């Protein structure tokens, strides 16, 4: 029976050893993202009933020590679900915030070099010419201001178009990241199902998979379903992105300036609801084209209105007779605006007059200067300046909304993450206390072995000297 005590002590030693190992594992992963602390569940091992015909003289069952029943993750899946739902909205609004920050940088308002200020300078330059139509310096300044205005309008338009192609590139990158996540989840599904089938709990693999699912949430509006065998399926718009051990990759298609996300192979479109992919699609397909369209409306109004007057006028050197019908602005085939090159080369050709050979005649210059207050945009309800100011305010408003949404959503995600961490994150204090607890138990079990050893010594070496 003494040998049985040795066995019991040894079990204790082994169990405490496992507990110390798990504690060490927790400590080592204290800062690992997505890691949930693990606990060793200790249970008494099956008791030993003394076999006897008549057991009345003996106590009942004899304990046989301790066993490690399981090592479990301490984690609350309800919070995981909430975290993922809120992450989708956070991913969407963060993407919008970034995009609008770039758009605001393109507008560069309110500054002395923004398009608003350049429009003002342009109109003022026409008044300066109308004050001294015969003055070449005023004409040269006008041409200069008009060139700067056109260049800035072109720059803004090109930069917004560049942001649009950047969004397409980001979409491709994010989609390949989503595909990578789907692939890894499918691979983890395989390992997890296999491990569970043999009765093990693959805690670290589960953590890895949960972390991937957290990441995926910010990209897409995916729904996740856990199967009884331990695999998770991921669905996008009702179709599987991951089905057990198989993943179905997405692809980005850009046609005619419109981007879409489709299932690779079938090319049928993916119905996304939220997440950064949807935000990028919105920015690419509607926000940026809308802004470019409004800048083009400004460009067209400017060119058409100025030209309509300018073509009826005469430059300083134009002969009498019908007006030379010279435009002031030219819209190039690529959509860029420029000042008519012959006027840039010779500012005398600026048609300030409505009659030939009258250098002091400023009728056209005055009329163009007064375009500043003409309602030419938005169904003839807004001046060019008004329209632009409204556009800037719209961009600012959308950007502010995105920021507020992002901040709120971030606070929500942080709060859920905090609740989650209250349960699953590693406390070093707690682990240290446990370590000492298990260490002491381990020492005690070792001491028990020493005691048994002494008992055996007594039996073997100190008793029954007969026959020696």
């Amino acid at each position, binding site marked *: 029976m003494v040998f049985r005590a040795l066995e019991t002590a040894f079990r204790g030693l082994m169990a405490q050893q496992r507990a110390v190992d798990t504690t060490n594992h927790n400590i080592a992963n204290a800062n690992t993202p997505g890691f949930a602390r693990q606990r060793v569940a200790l249970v008494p091992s099956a008791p030993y009933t003394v076999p006897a015909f008549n057991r009345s003289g003996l106590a009942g069952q004899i304990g046989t020590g301790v066993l490690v029943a399981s090592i479990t993750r301490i984690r609350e899946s309800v919070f995981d679900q909430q975290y993922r739902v809120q992450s989708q909205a956070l991913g969407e609004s963060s993407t919008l915030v970034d995009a609008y920050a770039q758009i605001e940088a393109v507008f560069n308002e*309110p500054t002395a070099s923004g398009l608003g*200020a350049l429009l003002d300078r342009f109109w003022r330059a026409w008044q*300066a010419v*109308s004050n001294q139509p015969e003055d070449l310096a005023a004409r040269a300044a006008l041409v200069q201001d008009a060139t700067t205005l056109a260049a800035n309008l072109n720059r803004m338009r090109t930069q917004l178009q560049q942001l649009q192609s950047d969004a397409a590139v980001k979409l491709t990158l994010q989609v390949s990241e989503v595909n990578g996540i789907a692939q890894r989840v499918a691979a983890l599904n395989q390992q997890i199902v296999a491990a569970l089938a043999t009765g093990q709990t693959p805690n670290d693999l589960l953590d890895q998979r949960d972390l991937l699912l957290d990441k995926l949430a910010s990209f897409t509006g995916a729904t996740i379903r856990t199967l009884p065998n331990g695999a998770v399926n991921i669905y996008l718009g009702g179709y599987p992105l991951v089905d057990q051990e198989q993943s179905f990759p997405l692809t980005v298609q850009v046609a005619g300036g419109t981007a879409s996300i489709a299932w690779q192979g079938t090319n049928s479109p993916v119905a996304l609801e939220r997440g950064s992919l949807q935000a990028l699609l919105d920015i690419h397909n509607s926000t940026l084209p809308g802004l470019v369209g409004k800048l083009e409306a400004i460009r067209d109004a400017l060119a058409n209105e100025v030209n309509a007057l300018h073509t009826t006028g005469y430059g300083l050197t134009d002969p009498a007779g019908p007006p030379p019908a010279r435009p002031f602005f030219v819209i190039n085939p690529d959509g860029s605006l420029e000042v008519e090159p012959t006027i840039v080369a010779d500012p005398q050709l600026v048609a300030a*007059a409505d*009659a030939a050979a009258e250098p002091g005649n400023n009728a056209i210059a005055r009329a163009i200067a007064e375009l500043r207050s003409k309602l030419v945009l938005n169904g003839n309800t807004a001046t060019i300046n008004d329209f632009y100011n409204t556009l800037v305010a719209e961009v*600012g408003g959308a950007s502010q909304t995105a920021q507020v949404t992002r901040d709120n959503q971030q606070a929500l995600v942080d709060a859920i993450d905090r609740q989650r*961490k209250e349960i699953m*994150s590693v406390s070093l*204090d707690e682990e240290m206390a446990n370590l000492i607890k298990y260490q002491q138990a381990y020492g005690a079990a070792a001491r028990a072995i020493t005691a048994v050893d002494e008992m055996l010594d007594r039996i073997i070496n100190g008793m029954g000297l007969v026959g020696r």
Partner: protein
Amino acid sequence: MRVTHGMLVDTLLKNLSGNLARMERVYQQITSARRISRPSDYPVGTATVLRLGSAAQEIEQYLANVEQARTWLDLTDQALTTIGQSLQRVRELVVQAANDTLSADDRQAIWAELTALQEQIATTGNYAHAGQYLFAGSTTQTEPFDLSTDPPTYRGNNDQLLRLIDRGVTVDINVPGSVAIVPVLQAVKQARDAVASNDPNAIRATLATIDAAQTQLLAAQASVGARVNRLDAQRDRLLDAHTSTLRLLSEAGDTDMAEAVTRFSKEELTYRAALQAGARAIQPTLLDFLR
């Protein structure tokens, strides 16, 4: 509630970065003296700032136009005054020449002076400002009075030169030579011819023409004066509008320094406190106290 060190560090970092972001924003408002650095800071305010900034620019241009128009009218007035003085002298000479006791030689001398006055009047009519002839109508780069003929002929036109002094409001700044100066030159020419004819009655008869020319000249001067008054009133109005626009612009777009500096101090204090408390909160673990 279970709190771990990881959570403490998370909270600390989140609070510090939020704090820094607020501090950075106030700092930017202080150093740029502008409340709005991006449209999203204050979308409606941005539109207001753009609109008022544009309005201020517009008013400044109208003010510049008013100043320029006024300069032109002042010079016109001076020229007309000079011509008026010459015409007054012409009248005096004609009255003198009409005296029956004068000899033909005396009249010859008067004729010579009248000729000189005629040329002086025409030369004054050719006054230019910054390369533009004041009395040429819209042909501002051609000398309006041709001195090679007698009397000097007017080569300009009758066009008005209009300047914008407000939205949709113009003022004409010129007096075409044909209106005020040609009658004067014709009257002087008539007087010279009469003096040359040595006939006191004919000479006396020209006084009526001279008086008529003088009346027209005075009318032109009065109209110039009226326009100067109008410009002065407009300038006062524009200056008022400019001041109030700038005040509104400042209210909408400028940093309230006292408030911003106070806020900055508050943020700085919070930041320092957060740093200090954080540094102490994340330091100790049970590990530090075991053996």
